[in-house]
């Protein structure tokens, strides 16, 4: 029973976090980064993302025109660098505003709940 509850909790947490990944990734790509450096940067600021989640997400955002990417062969080995596109910047602005509204509302909704 406890295992089931814990699994359920994990799934709910994953769902909750999945919604913010796009915003989190876009927010960190004003400067170009490769996959691992983005994961490290997010982890340093307290957001852990699984590798298997981030890489497909980056490609998807690129296919949607929100990111641009290029292979850089100057370092010790080739790496694919991602950076936000102009369309991505617009979307980031809108999503940020939406996020601030949401957090305000959620703060009010959760004000009376003890953690």
């Amino acid at each position, binding site marked *: 029973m406890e295992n089931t509850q814990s699994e359920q909790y994990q799934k709910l947490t994953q769902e909750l976090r999945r919604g913010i990944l796009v915003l989190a990734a876009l927010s960190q790509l004003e400067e170009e980064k*490769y*996959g*691992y*450096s983005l*994961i*490290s940067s997010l982890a340093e600021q307290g957001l852990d993302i*699984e*590798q*298997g*989640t981030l*890489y*497909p997400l980056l*490609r*998807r955002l690129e296919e949607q025109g929100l990111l641009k990417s290029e*292979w850089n062969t100057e370092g010790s*080995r*080739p*790496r*694919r660098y991602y950076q936000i596109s102009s369309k991505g910047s617009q979307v980031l602005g809108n999503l940020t505003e939406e996020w601030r509204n949401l957090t305000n509302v959620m703060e009010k909704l959760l004000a009376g709940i003890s953690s």
Partner: protein
Amino acid sequence: MSLLDRYIHEVGRFLPRKKRGSIQAELRSSVIDTLEGRFGPEPDQDQVAEILLEFGKPRDVAASYHPRGQYLVGPGLYPLFQMVAWIVVAAVLGAQLLAFGVSAFIAGEPFSALETLASLVSSVPAALGWLLITFMILQYFDAKPSLEEDPWDPKSLPELNPEQELKKGELILGLVGGILILVLLTLFPQWVGFITAPGGKFYPNPVILDYLVLIQISLLATILMNIYLLWKGSWTFLTRVIKLGLDAFGVVILAFLIQGHNAWLVANGSSGVMVISTIESNNWELVGMHAFRLAFVVAFIVTVIEIFATIYRMVRSKMASDVSAKDFVLKVE
């Protein structure tokens, strides 16, 4: 070959050819970055295994690069696939049994239960296989059922009106029956007639053959309308009007058929209704044509009643929607 090479190769097996090289290169670069970040420039095999375990099973990693999921038939098309599959199974089973019935009872060929069973076992999966291939192609091109309105308007939801509810069972039965008769008339027109006994003398019906094309058009139109009704899920004023038109068309064809049988019977010296002496005369050709005419007269009467029933339902449906609108107004007030 190193563990990492084997892993990258295995992931590639499940990736689409077009993106394979690029995804594999990026994945390799990312795994090496992670290894270096965690264990330094020369990790051992156990450390590589630990990181690969974090990345996940090759099949799962590859699947995460398919944003729409890996479906043969996705959730959007599945309800239609399921409905068509049941109709196909029923029609194939019916057509097979019909074909065996024709060959055994009319052509007098020996009947083998084992052969029939073997044929059914192979034909049903084959038909379903072709259906699946068709839907896989639709899925590949991301086809959406064309009748789904986009954008969806909640106001287009059907009224809560029992008069508009479909009897799905009846409709599917009618659909399967219609397909079977159409298959019979199209593939075995020479076997439309009557027979005295299994394997006995066969008499083709010359009148039906005269009107074959009209009958086929009527059946096909009815089948298409039934499929459309199944799709929409309820009656509308328009579909009732179309049904009226098709029934009226059927009545005209039946009238032609009855007229044709009358003419044939008069020409063969047996006008009027079938009497005992006709049966006692052992002229099976006459008896058969009388029986056909009788069946068409019954079908004519049933179809005329059906036309009146449809008109009655249209009136009731209109009244019911008026009443529910009034109820709504009263409740709001």
